[in-house]
């Protein structure tokens, strides 16, 4: 239908912190996505979760902000996960102490972010990404490999969604830990134009 590369933006969110849910104003995220009005909104959930409307295991920003917004607008939700990423096991000893500090820092980054934009650009974005990498490192190789495989599957399904409906405006909203890998992978496809969300 269209020969022009399809615009895809990846927006990272940072609302759920494993065992440490924090107070977070989701209205800013709703306003941001409402303003962008993407044609397709790719979310890290499985087709089964979407079909069953089973959002219990999904992040707060999906349950409370993006799914309700899509229900009331022309935004079409595309579930792009094949399965849920594996849960992080409990850390023990020194690793647990370091992990706790890292989560506190991530929570601080979230609390102190003035807007969803802040977590998607500049130093805060890179710091969050590295903290997640260190956290994954604390859990060992298996978790890191699994997270990477999950991001790889997300990317594959985003590409499929784009190829099913080329030329549309596609927004991918995932946890910030998958952003870098996802953007990098999506950039390798010639029919996709990975842009900043503000340029979508």
């Amino acid at each position: 239908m269209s020969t022009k590369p399809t615009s895809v933006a990846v927006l990272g969110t940072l609302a759920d912190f494993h065992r440490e849910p924090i107070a977070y104003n989701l209205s800013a995220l709703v306003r941001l996505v409402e303003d962008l009005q993407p044609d397709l909104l790719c979310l890290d959930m499985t087709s089964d979760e979407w079909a069953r409307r089973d959002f219990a295991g999904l992040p707060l920003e999906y349950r409370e902000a993006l799914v309700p917004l899509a229900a009331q607008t022309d935004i079409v939700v595309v579930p792009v996960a094949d399965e849920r990423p594996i849960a992080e096991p409990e850390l023990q000893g020194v690793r647990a102490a370091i992990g706790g500090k890292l989560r506190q820092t991530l929570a601080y980054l979230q609390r102190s972010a003035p807007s969803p934009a802040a977590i998607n650009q500049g130093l805060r974005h890179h710091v969050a990404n590295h903290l997640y990498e260190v956290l994954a490192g604390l859990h060992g190789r298996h978790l890191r490999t699994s997270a990477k495989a999950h991001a790889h599957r997300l990317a594959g399904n985003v590409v499929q969604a784009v190829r099913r409906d080329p030329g549309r405006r596609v927004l991918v909203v995932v946890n910030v830990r998958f952003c870098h890998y996802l953007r990098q992978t999506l950039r390798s496809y010639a029919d996709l134009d990975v842009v900043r969300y503000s340029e979508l």
Partner: protein
Amino acid sequence: MDGRVSVTRVVVIAQASLLREAWKALLSMQPGIEVAGDAGSPEALAARALPGGGCVLVDAQTGATADLVGRLSRLPREWHALVLVDASQTSQIVELLRAGAFGVVSRGSSVAELVSGLVAAGRGEIVIPSAIAAEVLTQLLDDASTGVDRPASLSSREAEVLHLLAQGLTNKLMAQQLLLSVRTVEAHLRAIYDKLGVTSRTEAVLWAVRHGYARGG
């Protein structure tokens, strides 16, 4: 920033002023909705000659639907009526659609269902509960003449869209089911209209029902 979806303008018709205020307060908080006004009756709205068009949410009092049927035709053509009904009764819905309503929404619906119904009706789509859509459309067929009765060479995607259209789905619901954008579904619908030789959604739906597209599978 092309392709941004415009807001749907909504006018509320309800006899009681408190009810109108409540509806306006609720709807004004919803994304993609702009409350353009309110009126106590279809006649009052017609007399006001509101510019532009959009959707009219008609909240008829319980049991007053029969009275409403004869008065819907007084609404300005650019304003498409979506009627709140107590229950999804086929005969009542058929009567309302024949009288000029673009759809109905049950009082038991969620806010999200209501809002998507308003958006769809505002665009000129027919809004019917999908569970009884085929039945409603078949009844409408009894007294409608589409003037079309020829097979068409539809692509498999267009056939899928037509199948969903015949089940009474709105463009958004079709798009969500097929994981396509609403704009792509609209493009498929335009192609379908061309191939079927019809000029409106209603004609396309009737063609689809007549040719068995409303059946499951």
